[in-house]
């Protein structure tokens, strides 16, 4: 059995090594794959804060991913059409600057998470799963029927947005940016988990009544976790949109919410690196199996089923021999 720390170190090293190797071999597509994995991993790291520590089974995290994506899409769209977003009482200029877009994405998704969390956390269990799913569908259908930003067809952004001092169109530079953001999200998860807040949240997942009887409010702990979680996933959404230079309602789809949970489960729920391993594996499977057969989702389904039925701790659980947190 291998210690979790070594696994974590190996995974991060691997994540860096692959694109560097690809750069040396001049294979930009591999770098793009690594970027895609980083961004998906980051989205799942966000969800893992709510799901893995707080035990909140959100089947609607695509809301935040999509909001982040549309924050990018809408700002960049207004910048590329040179028309301000007119809200009547205030006109918002578009932007091509990643930092501006990121701040917007984080703010908007955090606010949405606050609102959705306030309403959803009144319920528990299956009802929570269903109400988060319903919020996801609300945003999905809204984005489809709202034609100002492309409706069902989505919105294309022709040039990737800029970051001071970087040429984001160079794959390795954009990878560096996304990888750094992923590391920041991991750092946040790691510190949060060990902090008093994380400890209380982790206990609120296991025994909410105990947390109450020591004088803490489990609802507030979970709500804050949900907000932080939504904000991280939102930022990942903005990066994802920039990676593809395209946003569409599929970023809000419930399949995406499901896939984010899948990434976490494959790696190991509640584990720091669970989402990262899951995302790397997911992107690798998508690329290799998808190249071999059109029906690679069958194999993904089979793997997922085996993990759920026989390996509750995901890959990290298998490697470390420890089951990890139960959600």
């Amino acid at each position, binding site marked *: 059995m291998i210690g979790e720390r070594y696994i974590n170190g190996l995974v991060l090293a691997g994540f860096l090594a692959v694109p560097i190797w690809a750069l040396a071999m001049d294979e930009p597509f591999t770098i793009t794959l690594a970027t895609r994995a980083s961004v998906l991993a980051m989205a799942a790291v966000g969800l893992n804060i709510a799901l893995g520590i707080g035990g909140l089974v959100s089947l609607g995290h695509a809301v935040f991913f999509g909001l982040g994506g549309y924050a990018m899409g809408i700002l960049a769209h207004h910048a590329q059409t040179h028309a301000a977003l007119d809200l009547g009482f205030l006109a918002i200029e578009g932007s091509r600057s990643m930092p501006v877009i990121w701040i917007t994405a984080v703010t908007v998704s955090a606010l949405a998470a606050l609102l959705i969390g306030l309403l959803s956390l009144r319920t528990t269990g299956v009802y929570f799963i*269903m109400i988060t799913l319903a919020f996801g569908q609300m945003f999905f259908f809204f984005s489809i029927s709202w034609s100002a930003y492309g409706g069902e067809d989505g919105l294309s952004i022709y040039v990737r947005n800029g970051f001071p001092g970087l040429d984001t169109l160079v794959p390795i530079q954009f990878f560096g940016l996304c990888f750094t953001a992923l590391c920041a999200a991991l750092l946040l998860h790691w510190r949060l988990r060990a902090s008093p807040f994380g400890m209380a949240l982790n206990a609120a997942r296991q025994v909410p009544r105990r947390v109450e009887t020591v004088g803490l409010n489990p609802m507030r702990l979970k709500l804050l976790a949900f907000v932080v979680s939504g904000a991280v996933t939102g930022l990942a959404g903005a990066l994802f949109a920039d990676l593809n230079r395209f946003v569409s309602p599929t970023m809000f789809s419930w399949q995406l919410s499901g896939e984010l949970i899948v990434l976490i489960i494959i790696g190991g729920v509640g584990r720091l690196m669970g989402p990262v391993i899951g995302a790397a594996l997911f992107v690798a499977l998508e690329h290799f199996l998808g190249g071999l057969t059109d029906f690679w989702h069958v194999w993904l389904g089979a793997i997922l089923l085996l993990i759920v039925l026989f390996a509750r701790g995901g890959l990290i659980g298998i490697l470390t021999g420890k089951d990890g947190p139960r959600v």
Partner: protein
Amino acid sequence: MSAILIIEQVLNGLQFGVMLFLMAAGLTLIFGVMGLINLAHGSLYMVGAFAAAAVAGATGSFVLALIAALAAAACAGTIVEIVVIRRLYRAAHLDQVLATFALILIFSEGTRWVFGSFPLFLDIPDYLSGPIALPGGIEYPLYRLALIGAGVLVAVELWWLTSRTRIGIQIRAGENDREMIAALGVDISRLYTLVFAMGAALAGLAGALVGAIQSVQVGMGEPVLILAFVVIVIGGIGSIKGAFIGSLLVGLTDTLGGVFLPELFKVFMDVGAATQTGSALASMAVYILMSVVLIWRPTGLFGMRA
């Protein structure tokens, strides 16, 4: 806006509602009795539709197609229950969500493998096609009317089954107390398989019936599945009565919202903006309805207190 249009739309809403009920009844029974969230219920709907389309294509008989849909969905349900689902009854909700999500992937891609990506078509039989004249000069498609009838019939049968028969009493006892019913000598594992297969058959039937007015294709189950979830959450998970009322509410809200909300907004907006806002809002209406119900009653209209 004429009265005829309104009545037509109400009928459309009812038709949609009773079809949702066929899905929701199975879901809510499976959750109420076994405590299982089954995301793959939409796949059974799809299995029913494909079986019906294949058999109708081969034999030309709509009745045989419906029987095939029931049989195929029930078989698929039984196999899935025995191989996968029964390991999940005592598992966490997250495991159930994921395992049944995995089943969706397998079912969808498997169906694509067998039938290809192109949609199949299932024709309405001659004796049910064409419009029928209703009192008040309304012309309404006979088939849709038949769907409403079929749905109501199933609802009545289900009510009779769960409240008046031995098996229904066992099912309801199973909801309340697993140990008790096991102690009474009922084979609980067989009962569960039976309930699951029954739910699957209903989903398959719904798939076949709706398949005749829409195209039969991979992925057709999930939108209906999610709406069926909305239904049972509104109605209160585990309650057949709640599922019925929830189905009609959702069916009517969705159908009428789509037609009348844009009209409503035209009263105080210009036409373009009203159509835009109205249809955007209408597409979200059922989810807004669900959130409002849950905020008001966190366990649904007829749900037991958690």
